[in-house]
Structure formats: C-alpha cells, structure tokens
C-alpha cells in the first residue's frame, strides 16, 4: 500500500492557481471512485490544497489534479505547482503541516483545527480508512507535542494581535475595559475587532468626520464621540488606539498628565499606529502609561517570528522521531505480521478530537 500526498500550497502556487483547485463537496469520493485511491482525504485551506491518500499503485500528481478539477486535463502551466510525497516523505510532510511548520506564519495553530476538520469530514464520508486514520491520529499527537515542547507558537506575529496580546499582559481579562479609537483607519478597526472578540464591549470612536466615526462605531458595536471631546474621555479610558492623519501630535505628556492624575492605580495602554505619530513619545515616561507606536509593535512581531524560527530545529527533531516510529509500523513486513496475528489496522472508533489530545 502506498500512502501519498499530492498538492499545492503558498510555497508553490499563487492564490489564483490554488483557488482553482479548491476542494469541492464530495471530492474525496470522486478521488476514490475515479482515481484508484483506496482512501482519500482533502485538506483545503486558503494556503493549500492537498490530497492525502492510500493506493495500491503509485498515482501521478496529474491524475490527482484532474480528479480535483473533475476534468480530463489540467492546464500545463499548473503542473509545476504540484508536489508529491510518498511513504515517509508524505508522513513527514503531514506532520510538518499539522505542526504549523509549513504554514505562511510559522507556528500558527489554525492549521491543526483545519486538519482535524478535514479528517473528521473524510471519516464521516467513509473515505478515510485505517491507513489515513493512523496517519492523521499520529499527526495530531505530533502537533500537540511540538506545541507543548517548543516555543513555536509563542508570541503574536501581526501588529493587531501584538497590540491585543500586550493589552492582555497589562489588563488580564479585557472584559469591561474601555477602548477609545482615535481616527477611523483600517488597522485601528481591525485591532478594535480583535479586542471585541476578546470581550471588550465599551468602544468609543472619535474622528474628525463624525459621520465616519458613527459608521465605524456601528461596525464595531461602539458609540461615536465628537472629535472636540475625545480628551475628556481619557479620564476613564483603558486603551487608546490612535490612527489619525494629523501632522502634529494630538497628545503630549503635558496634555495627558492632568487628564489621568486621579487614576494612579489604573494603567493606560496607548497604541499609536499613525504615521506621523499622533502621540508624543515622552508620554511613555508617565507613570502607568504604556505607549507603543507602529515600529515597536512591528519589532515585537518580528521578535516573535525570529523566536519561532529558532524553534524550527527542535520541532523538526520531534517530527523526525515520529516519522521513524511511523515508518517502522508502515514497513510491509510489519503490516503483514499485524494481519497474520489478526491485529490488523486500528478500528475507526476513536473520536478525532480526543485522540489528538492523547
């Protein structure tokens, strides 16, 4: 039995190509019925489309690509975008994918959830048999070990998530925190949405254009504040996200000190993502005020990426151990002896989620 992976990803194909092969409902069944796969599973995310399968005879990448499109021929220009892994290479590739090592953002954990969903779908449709069952169960265990034994998932890697991460390190629970958006830029809107997803309910939006402020406020579930009044809000605000197009600082240390003089034990977190900056740098020197501009946030994101990169070696070592162990099981001799003793491949009774947590 050959286990294999055929696919394309952000490493090999532009989004226009990837979206052409995006999985269609029933793709696994089509692969089984028309491509000679005994087992098939399609892992389709925005960054990759991959077919994992088990077949009696080796299958060509072109055959799989045709099945994905449900057509007789694929564009010749698409063919170089496909990669193909077989046996231990396929095992290693899946372990790397599930662990987030092959992702665009190294160490991201969303891929593990997507892999589990793909596996659950294949199980439900009956296209994942004992080979893929064992392979994917092991991949979930490997991903969990990589996550717990290394720092591959440590730190936030985008400006918005760094800002939210910092807010959590200052305030802990973000529920009940008051947030003021100064300016209605796209990035502050995105950051505000992450804050809302973390439990923030009190959002105030102030912009030179009150109309734009009202529009953004309704998008993020907040309320608009006239631009002339935003300074008064500072007395009770916990987090300020500033992104106006002002050429002069909107807030200096001399302006802020009297505004927060009565709140000695409540920190104020200011995220200044405007260029030129809205908040004078000396504001960071005020007791209890933590000011981060776009460069600081970017630098922290880069530190996290660098830290994650440093962990790749340790993660690869864990993966190699498991690939070797899996390859031993997968050797034809081992399978034959399993069949001879009646202890054939594992039954599909285990919950994918529970198994991944073992």
């Amino acid at each position, binding site marked *: 039995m050959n286990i294999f992976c055929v696919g394309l990803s952000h490493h090999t194909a532009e989004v226009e190509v990837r979206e052409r092969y995006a999985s269609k409902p029933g793709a696994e069944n089509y692969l089984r019925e028309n491509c000679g796969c005994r087992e098939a599973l399609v892992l389709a995310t925005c960054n990759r489309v991959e077919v994992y399968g088990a077949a009696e005879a080796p299958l060509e990448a072109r055959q799989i690509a045709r099945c994905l499109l449900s057509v007789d021929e694929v564009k010749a220009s698409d063919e170089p975008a496909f990669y193909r892994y077989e046996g231990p290479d396929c095992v290693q590739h899946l372990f790397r994918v599930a662990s987030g090592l092959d992702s665009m953002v190294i160490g991201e954990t969303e891929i593990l959830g997507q892999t589990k969903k793909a596996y659950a779908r294949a199980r439900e449709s009956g296209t994942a048999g004992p080979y893929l069952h064992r392979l994917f169960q092991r991949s979930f265990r490997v991903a969990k070990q990589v996550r717990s034994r290394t*720092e591959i998932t440590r730190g936030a890697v985008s400006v918005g998530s760094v800002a939210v991460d910092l807010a*959590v*390190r200052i305030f802990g629970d973000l529920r009940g925190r008051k947030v003021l958006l100064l300016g209605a830029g796209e990035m502050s809107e995105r950051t505000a949405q992450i804050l809302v997803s973390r439990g923030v309910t009190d959002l105030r939006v102030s912009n030179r254009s009150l109309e734009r402020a009202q529009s953004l406020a309704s998008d993020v579930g907040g309320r608009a504040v006239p631009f002339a009044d935003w300074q008064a809000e500072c007395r009770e605000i916990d987090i300020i996200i500033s992104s106006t197009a002002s050429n002069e600082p909107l807030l200096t240390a001399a302006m802020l000190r009297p505004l927060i003089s009565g709140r*000695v*034990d409540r920190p104020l977190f200011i995220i200044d993502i405007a260029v030129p900056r809205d908040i004078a740098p000396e504001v960071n020197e005020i*007791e209890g005020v*933590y000011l981060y501009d776009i460069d600081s946030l970017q630098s*922290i994101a880069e530190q996290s990426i660098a830290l994650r990169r440093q962990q790749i070696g340790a993660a690869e070592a864990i993966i190699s151990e498991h690939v070797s162990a899996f390859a031993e099981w997968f050797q034809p001799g081992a399978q034959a002896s399993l069949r001879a003793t009646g202890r054939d491949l594992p039954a599909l009774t285990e919950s994918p989620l529970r198994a991944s947590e073992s």
Partner: protein
Amino acid sequence: MDRQLLILSTLCYLVATVRAALVLRAGTFKPGRFNFLMVAFGFVLQTGFLTLRGHALGHCPLTNLFEVFVFLAWSVALIYLVVGPVYQLSLMGAFTAPVVLIIQAFALLAPIDVPSAARVRANPWLEFHASVSLIAYGAFALAFVAGVMYLVQERQLKTHQLRSIFYQLPPLTDLFAAITRLLWLGFALYTVGLASGFLTGQPLPRLKVICAFVVWILYGAILQGRHLRRLAPRHVAALCIIAFTAAVSVLWAINFATQKLPVQ
C-alpha cells in the same frame, strides 16, 4: 535526623531554583506543576523537621534564630501553597523557591543553631505570638515575590524589551491585586501577632517591641498609600521588596540582639 530532613528540603528548593533559572535563561519555560510539587515536597520535609524539633523541645520550635528562620521559610512555602494556585502556579513557584532557599540555606549554614541557655517553658500565648508573626512574614515574603514579578513585567512593558519570561508572567493588574491581597493578609496576621505579644505575661524586650512596631508602621504606611491612591503600583511593588528586606534584617537583628541583651 531532623537536620537531615531540613537538608533534603533545602535540596528540593535548590532543584526548583536551578531548574527554573535554567529554563528561564534558555527561554524554554513552560507552565507546569514541577515547581509547585518541589515546593510542596520541600514543605512536607520542613514540616517533618519542625514536628521532630517541637517534640524534642516540648513546644513550638522557636527557641533560637535557626528555628526562627526555618519557621519563616516554612511560612513562605505555606502561604505560597495556599495562595499560589490562584495565580500562575509555576512561575510564582519559580520566584518563591529561591526566596525559601536563601532563608533556609542561611539558617543551615550560619552558626545560629545554638540551644537556648535558659530552659524555655511552654507558653501558648508566646507560641501563638511567634508563629502568627512568622506566618505574617510568609505573606510579606510572597508580596515581595509578587513585587519582583510586577517590576520585571512592568520594566519589559515600559522598555518594549519583551523576553521569553514576559509571556509567562501574569498580567500587571493581576499581580498588583495579588500584592494588595498579600499585604492585607500579612498586615492582619502581623497585627494579631503583635497584639498577642502583650498577652504572653512575660516582660517584652524594648528593642523587640520598637522594631516590631517599626515593621507594622512600615507595612501600614504602604497599605495606606495604596488605599489613598497616593502610591503608584510600581512604587507599592518596590516598597514590598524594600519592606520585606528590612523586616527580615530587623528580625535577624532583634533575635541576635535579644539573645545577648537582658530583658528591659
């Protein structure tokens, strides 16, 4: 036998300290129960030591500076085991273990385990006074630990230099809440301990009384400053460190001095 238990207990704290230092230095710290378990094991051995010593003496083992410091180390571990689970277990343990290690190693290494010259008779009020006061010191020690954690975290946030430990430390506001609660707990226990000192029926060394009141006023002032919002959280954290260092120095000094000075 009792001293061997104490040495084993010290080794537990040493292992916890060294391991925490190594993983923090390597940036590979992961939350887990190792430090909590090491502190718990060390605490059990300390309890064994104090029980054996207590049986041998026939009362609470607080007859010399050695026993006072061991009891203090035991109190720090006790408060950590009680309040530690409320916060991030492992890291609090990583910061607590060295504090206990230093106190206990000092007790073991310094030539202070000198049997009391006078035969001390069992006095429940005296034992209550001494033990409650030392448990209060345990709470102050944990406030010291939380204060160090607060300053480390605050410094990183201010300077934008985030190290691996940044992601393991609790949020600033949680740490400050912990400091405040530990200060109140310690202050309440210390007040009870101080008041019970006047019920022992024994004459009190004047130096000891003055020093005890200085510590009480110091912690009272920190709490008042916090309550009136006159002190910023960073200052409260720094004062917790200064106050505990001063209090332990005073504890050592007054016990050292009162062993030599006649009762006033």
